[in-house]
């Protein structure tokens, strides 16, 4: 669906995007992560056909953005980090305007606007002035605009920025629904935990360069060198025995007893070796009621990657 090949963008004093390459399959949600000034917005603007690359090629549905930008604009939806200004325009008029701009035939325009308003929950505020909307509602409207042409690829630049927790949850739900409809979504965000929850793939960049790209789980697994595992026992007196048991096992360190019935330790071997330890514990007669390996969050992955590389 989206293929980026050696994308580079130079500005007079800085290389904003540096040989970025990746490919995104249809129907996937890809999170785009990087520190401020990493080149996320620049890359997204190029993919959305708003800027020319200095080098490199970008294809959306096998069409080059440099050669067919007008065709590509019809099949993508872009939610930039700004809304524009629309004084004296209601929500309904705003959507009507963009439906006309996308040349949606008048026969189907009304139906399409209704669909969008229902999906985004804007139907209750159809007559409200756009300029008076809250940040969350504006973001819904922005999403509605980007969806009005029923795009195959949706590009979202920091859609959750400035939203309150409730609006963020609602937005996440909408994104999941869109993915279920088969749309490919390329979304950048600073809120990494949210991306971890909704994304299939993740692309991490720093100083314009790709640092990591791939399936979220795969990346998390590959980055996870150690696991914090907590074990809770039903019978507290067994805790000393469990401590001794763990001390004899290779790859286990930093064992701490907590609240007389729980134990936390660090496991520094492959994730595949965790289940045998669990099985052995139960076979040795320890009354395990909780066995919880702590997986790395997206924040941990991001910090580890960017610290390691730079």
């Amino acid at each position: 669906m989206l293929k980026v090949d050696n994308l580079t963008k130079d500005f007079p004093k800085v290389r904003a995007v540096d040989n970025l390459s990746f490919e995104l399959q249809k129907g996937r949600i890809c999170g785009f992560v990087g520190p401020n000034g990493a080149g996320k917005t620049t890359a997204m603007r190029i993919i959305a056909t708003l800027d020319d690359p200095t080098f490199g090629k970008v294809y959306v549905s096998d069409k080059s953005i440099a050669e067919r930008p007008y065709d590509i604009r019809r099949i993508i939806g872009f939610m930039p980090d700004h809304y524009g200004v629309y004084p004296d325009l209601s929500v309904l008029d705003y959507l009507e305007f963009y439906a006309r701009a996308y040349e949606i035939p008048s026969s189907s325009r009304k139906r399409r606007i209704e669909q969008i308003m229902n999906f985004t929950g804007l139907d209750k505020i159809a007559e409200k002035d756009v300029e008076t909307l809250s940040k969350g509602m504006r973001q819904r409207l922005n999403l509605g605009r980007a969806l009005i042409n029923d795009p195959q690829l949706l590009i979202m630049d920091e859609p959750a920025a400035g939203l309150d927790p409730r609006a963020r949850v609602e937005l996440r739900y909408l994104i999941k629904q869109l993915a279920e409809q088969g749309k490919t979504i390329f979304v950048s965000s600073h809120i990494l935990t949210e991306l971890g929850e909704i994304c299939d793939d993740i692309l991490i960049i720093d100083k314009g360069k790709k640092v990591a790209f791939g399936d979220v789980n795969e990346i998390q697994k590959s980055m996870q060198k150690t696991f914090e595992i907590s074990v809770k026992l039903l019978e507290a007196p067994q805790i000393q025995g469990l401590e001794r048991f763990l001390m004899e096992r290779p790859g286990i360190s930093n064992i701490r007893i907590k609240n007389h019935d729980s134990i936390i330790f660090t496991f520094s071997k492959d994730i595949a070796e965790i289940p045998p330890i669990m099985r052995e514990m139960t076979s040795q007669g320890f009354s395990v009621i909780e066995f919880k390996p702590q997986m790395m969050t997206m924040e941990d992955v991001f910090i580890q990657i960017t610290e390691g590389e730079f």
Partner: protein
Amino acid sequence: MIKPREISENAMLFKDITQWIRNKTFLALFLSLLFGAGAISFFFVPVSGDAAQLGVIAFSIFTIILFIYTLVIAGMGFNLTSREFANKTFELYELSGMSLERMILGKLLSLLTQFLFGYFCIVPFMFFAYFLGGLDFISIFGASFLMILFSVPLYLFILLLSLSSKSVKIGLIGRIFVGIVLLYMGFGLLSLIFIPRSPLSGVSDFIKSLLTFDLEALKIALVFFIFYIQLCFLLFYICCNFISSTNDSRELQIKLLLFTLFLSWLLVFHALYRNAIRGSDAEIFLLVYIPVYLMLFLLGALFYYHAFHPPLIIRNRQKEARGFRRFLYHLFLPGARGTHRLILYMLLITALSVFFHYVGFKTGKNDPRLLLHAGSYCLQVPFFLAVPGGLFLCIRSLQNSNKTMKALVITWWVLSGVFLMIVYGIMESSGYWRDSPLSNLVQFLSLVLSPVSTLFIGFERRSPFHEIGYLIRGGLGLTGIVFMIWILRRRRKLNENLLDSIV
């Protein structure tokens, strides 16, 4: 060709009209126009007096009201469009795949609709003035038609100003400029209206001549419409070019229109008014060559320091073009190289025009050197385009920053020109410095540093350089062409690697 359905479906027209109707000022404007015009009419009915004056005064008052309304619409349009432009709203419009032409057409049609709304509120009252006496029907019809005619370039000009900069500060300067231009136009209109028998009778006589198929009147009307249409299209495409993102442009259309305007201006003078060329060098320049001078500068300012290579989409369009379109792309090639070539073509045509007039002047009773003086101003343009722009290219940080280069060159023209004019003005007003060597130096610098100061000081007859002015300007022009070739080669070298990698 634009289809009526395309107009009714135009998204920008829909949006701007919806915004205008929802705006609080809409009702206030509508009621003020209607009640204001009505009250004035009621005031005039019982007034007795000179019938010849009453109609003219009533008509003048209605015209002023309509003019103020026109300014209000222009101001509102400027505010909305400049805000949209400054806040990157046009980017969102572009993302929808709406063409640049549709956006500007929608904006223009919206402003014209708003204007016509007020116009049709006032026009019935204007015709009411006919019954007060002193005016004939054709005068009223002609004057009201002229207002519609001038509203198109006015609103295009307003759009162009509102799209000329994303910077809020420059936007403020733009607002002040718009205010001054509109006030100036307003005073001009008022003075015309209150000069007895000047405009209305002139308009009336002209329309009567047209209706009787008077050849001279038809010729004037034809010439007027040729330039009017080209100018409107030129303004239209400059607006389109201003809102285009970095990967698209309307450079070809603007170059084509500038060239046709340039050619038609020279042709009209050669074909129709060649024998009318009289007067001093300054008068000949103003009569014949100032539009040529301005067009060369407009071309240079817009595209000479533009990106060396046009965006890829333009190059693809060029590759795909066939037949006449291919020829157009060849002649008006977008990018610095094409601009360079077009400027040289235009200079060659200007030189031929000067030569042609010069031969005519020689055989007549006029001093042919006056024509050389006037024409040589256009031939000096390459020098101003190349110097100091070429020197700026030596600064590393400016080498790949076209916008900064362009801004620096234009700032140099304006600031150095204004500075030299002020210094020269002070010297002229003081007896001590007048005709001193320092004054001569300032005059020389005025000739070589800025196109602005050249125009204002170059025609000074007391200048020691006046007699050989055309030789100096011709020499500088040739030097400029050499510099332009050097600049082109330098810029090509700087961009060589870039282009290879993009393609």
